[in-house]
Every structure is written in structure tokens, then in C-alpha cells.
């Protein structure tokens, strides 16, 4: 099933476009990697395909069968730990519980299932032992892991990860990619991940979108490879 379809999309931030006439279909229920050099508009592409940015021209169609009230349920882990509010006076468990707020709304109380979900998410990223710590006391890699646990607790249809393994050691990275693979295969959810470490991640991915920069007629253009290139267990 198609999750999002982009047709002849043009988008930029200044006068010139950074994405020029791009057409791409994103399948639901896949683990998708986006790769490319710095400044290749990976994050921009990510936001366009999820309908978070409005293109200058062209269309982005979100499958309405998967949308709730006209929009996709998205869990997002930002690019840098620097974006993380390190002085935020919150315990790890408070932050991960906040992932459930979207489903709880303003007033509904936490159920036992949700408490169990929070515990499961923290255990999946090996951070359960740190649940009562202040988030400011954690290392960069640990902060990244609790952000991922928070996004998992949202139980989103689409999990969007912008260079999520930054700051993690090799063992944590391998465990994390395995966890995402399981999340897609067992629950049928979609994971879209911006990554530079394609050698490490490609065994786990269903699809890779690689972006290249080309100078053409004075404009910066983007070229993507076919999204049908399959790797890993599903290949």
C-alpha cells in the first residue's frame, strides 16, 4: 500500500529550489533509509513526503486510509542531541510517558497497558534502569535512546528518525537497527530513517533513497535512485 506519493515536487528555502521536480512513491510497512551528502535536502525530503512542508509546485498525496483526521500519526526523533533541551527538569520516565499523551488526549488517565508499554519501550532501548534519572544527567547516546523510546511509546504509524544513531556505540547501533527491523516486520509500521552509515544499516533496510546533488542550468537538482531496490531479510 502506498503511504505517500510525490509528483513533480519542487521546493526550496530561498529563491532557488533544493528539490526540483521529484516524483517518488513511499510504500507503507517498510524500513526506508534516506542517504546523501550534507546539504542534499534529506530532512527536507522527509518533511515533504510526510506533508509537513508545502511544495512550491507539484503534489504530495498522503493515503487517506492511513490518515487520522487528515494527517498521519508520526513519531519523530530529531537530528541532533543539541536540539534536545538538556536542562529540561524531567525524569526519564516522565519524558517517555509523554509519548502516550497524543493517544490519551487532555484528560484520560494512564492505563496499565500504557504503563506496561512505557516500560517495554524503555527496556527495548536498554534504559529502564535509568528511569528515575534526570535527563540532563545522561550522556548524548543515552539521551538519543530515550528520545527513541518516547517515539516508540507514541505507537505511530510512521516513525521518522533523523540520523538517530548519532552518539551511540556500535553495540547500541546494531541493537537499535535490529529493533527497528522488528518494529516494521512484526507490527507492520513504517520507519523512515535518515542515515550516513549505509554500510551498517543496509542489511536491515527494505528500501534506500539516495540523494545526489547536480548542477544543471544553474539550479541544484536532486536525483533519487529507485525505491524498489531491496536489501536485507525481505530481499
Amino acid at each position, binding site marked *: 500500500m502506498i503511504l505517500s506519493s510525490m509528483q513533480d515536487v519542487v521546493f526550496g528555502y530561498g529563491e532557488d529550489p533544493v528539490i526540483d521536480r521529484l516524483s517518488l512513491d513511499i510504500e507503507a510497512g517498510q524500513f526506508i533509509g534516506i542517504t546523501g551528502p550534507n546539504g542534499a535536502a534529506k530532512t527536507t525530503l522527509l518533511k515533504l513526503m*510526510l506533508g*509537513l512542508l508545502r511544495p512550491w509546485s507539484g503534489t504530495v498525496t498522503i493515503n487517506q486510509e492511513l490518515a487520522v483526521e487528515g*494527517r498521519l*500519526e*508520526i*513519531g*519523530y*526523533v*530529531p537530528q541532533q542531541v543539541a*536540539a*534536545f*533541551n538538556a*536542562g*529540561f*527538569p*524531567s*525524569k526519564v520516565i*516522565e*519524558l517517555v510517558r*509523554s509519548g502516550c*499523551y*497524543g493517544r*490519551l*488526549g*487532555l484528560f484520560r488517565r494512564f492505563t496499565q497497558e500504557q504503563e506496561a508499554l512505557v516500560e517495554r519501550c524503555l527496556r527495548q532501548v536498554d534504559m529502564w534502569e535509568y528511569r*528515575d534519572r*534526570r535527563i540532563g544527567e545522561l550522556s548524548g547516546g543515552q539521551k538519543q535512546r530515550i528520545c527513541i523510546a518516547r517515539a516508540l511509546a*507514541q505507537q*505511530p504509524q510512521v516513525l*521518522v528518525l533523523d540520523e538517530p544513531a548519532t552518539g551511540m556505540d556500535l553495540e547500541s547501533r546494531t541493537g537499535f537497527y535490529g529493533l527497528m527491523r522488528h518494529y516494521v516486520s512484526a507490527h507492520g509500521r513504517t520507519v523512515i530513517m535518515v542515515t550516513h552509515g549505509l554500510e551498517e544499516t543496509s542489511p536491515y533496510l527494505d528500501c534506500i533513497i539516495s540523494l545526489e546533488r547536480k548542477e544543471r542550468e544553474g539550479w541544484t537538482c536532486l536525483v533519487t535512485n529507485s525505491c524498489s531496490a531491496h536489501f536485507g531479510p525481505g530481499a
Partner: protein
Amino acid sequence: MFSYEFMQRAFWAGGLIGMIGPLLGVYLMLRRQVLMADTLSHVSLAGVALGTVLQLNPALSGFAVAVAGGIIIEQLRRSYRTYSELPVAIIMTSGLALAVVLMSLKQNLSKSFSSYLFGSIVAVSDTQLKLIALVAAAGLLYFIVLRRPLYSLTFDEETASISGVHTGLLSFSFAVLTGMTVAAAMPVVGVLLVSALIVLPASIALRIASGFTAAILIAVLTGLLGVFSGLTASYYINTPPGGTIALILLIFLLTAIGVQKLLRLKHRCSKYRRPLKQLEIHAKP
């Protein structure tokens, strides 16, 4: 002390502001908008001057202009995303300039303005007390009902927006509430010290709290304690209430920092202290 009606009003007003100000302060500090309270108090002063010149109720005109200032700052914040402190500076200088010019238009204004600048117990009229009660009730309701989206917004605006939180609407309503609270707090602590009541209890809370809920509770309790002890002290030693409250809160902050440092040092010493002899042996190659 409580036999005087104006002292009863002052304690009511102080208690209400001492509760809502620090609560707002925690969010303002975490959103890196700590100078917004100071800015809006200057803007509110311009509103008071405008009300006096136009022969309107100065408290109400100060209130309305502070709310408008909050909305303008929020709008400018979106235009200057890279220079987020710029809107605050623009509005602060504009507000102060407008206040000074308007004050010069009317004779004998300096006396009534001093109560707005430094805060005065007698400045709290029945109308102002009603306004403060209304703002405190609205603020409390706002923070209770929207505590979950506000937590997400304060943690990271981009993540909150992508996750479906209406960040634009929430930020605008937050700016309006900030304007309302600042304008309501002015008669109690004065324009110059209004941010002290909002910022100092939050500074203490963010330093010592172990979690978010704890930070909110510590900020509110510190605010209430600071206001009540400040009002009492100012009554008995005949000092300006705004300054007394701010100084007492500053003493609380310095004490909290000192006690926290001592506790950490004690903990470190008790956990890692070893006999000197043993250290010397280990130091040998």
C-alpha cells in the same frame, strides 16, 4: 496586620500572583523566553500611561496593551527564528520609549507611576484584585487543562508539532497568558521587579527539582513563601513590598544554591573518601 483591609487585599493579590507567576516562569525559562516578562512589564507601563492620558482606567489599559505586546512578540518570534531575542529587545525599547513620551504629556504623573514602577500595597484596588483573581483562575485552568501539550511544546517545539500538537495556537495562547499575568502582577511587585517574581522561584525549582511535576510544585511553593514573607517584612520594617519580595526570593535562591553545593560535597566526601595512607600507597608506581 490583617486588621487593615489593604493588607488583606495585598495578601490575596500576592498569593494569587505568587502562585501563577512562578508557574508561568517555569515554562518561560524552559522556552528560553525569560526576558519576556520584563519586556511585557515595560509595555504594560506604556499602556498605563496611555490610559491615563486618554482618561481610561490605567489598570485595564495596561492589561490590554501587555496582552497585545505578548501577541506581537509571538508573531515577531516567528519572523526572526534565528534571532529569537530580537523581538523581545524591539518590544522592550518601544514600550519604554512610548511610556516615557506619554508620561511627559501629562503633568503630576510621576507619583502615581512610582507605584507601578516599584509596586505598592495600597495600589491594589478592588478592581485590580478582581482582575488578578480572574487572571489567576484562567491561568490555573490553562496550565491544568493543557499540561500535556504544554509539556511536549516546552520540551521541543518541532517534535511536538510533527506529533500533532497545535504549536502555533498553543504558543499564541501562552503569549496572551504571559501578558495577562505580567499586567496583573504589576501592582504587587511593580514594573521593575515583576520578572523577579516570575523568574526567581522558577530558577530555584529548576535547580533542585528531580522531575517536571516537582519543579512546578517547588516554584509555586517558593513563590507563595516569598510573597507572604516579603509582604510581612515590608509591613513591619516599612520597605517597598516589591523590592522586599524580590530580595527575599534572591536570598532563597542563594540559600538553595549553597545548600545544594554543600550536600553534593558531603555526598562526594562520604562516598569516595579513603584513608590518606591508602591513597599514598596507590599513588606509588
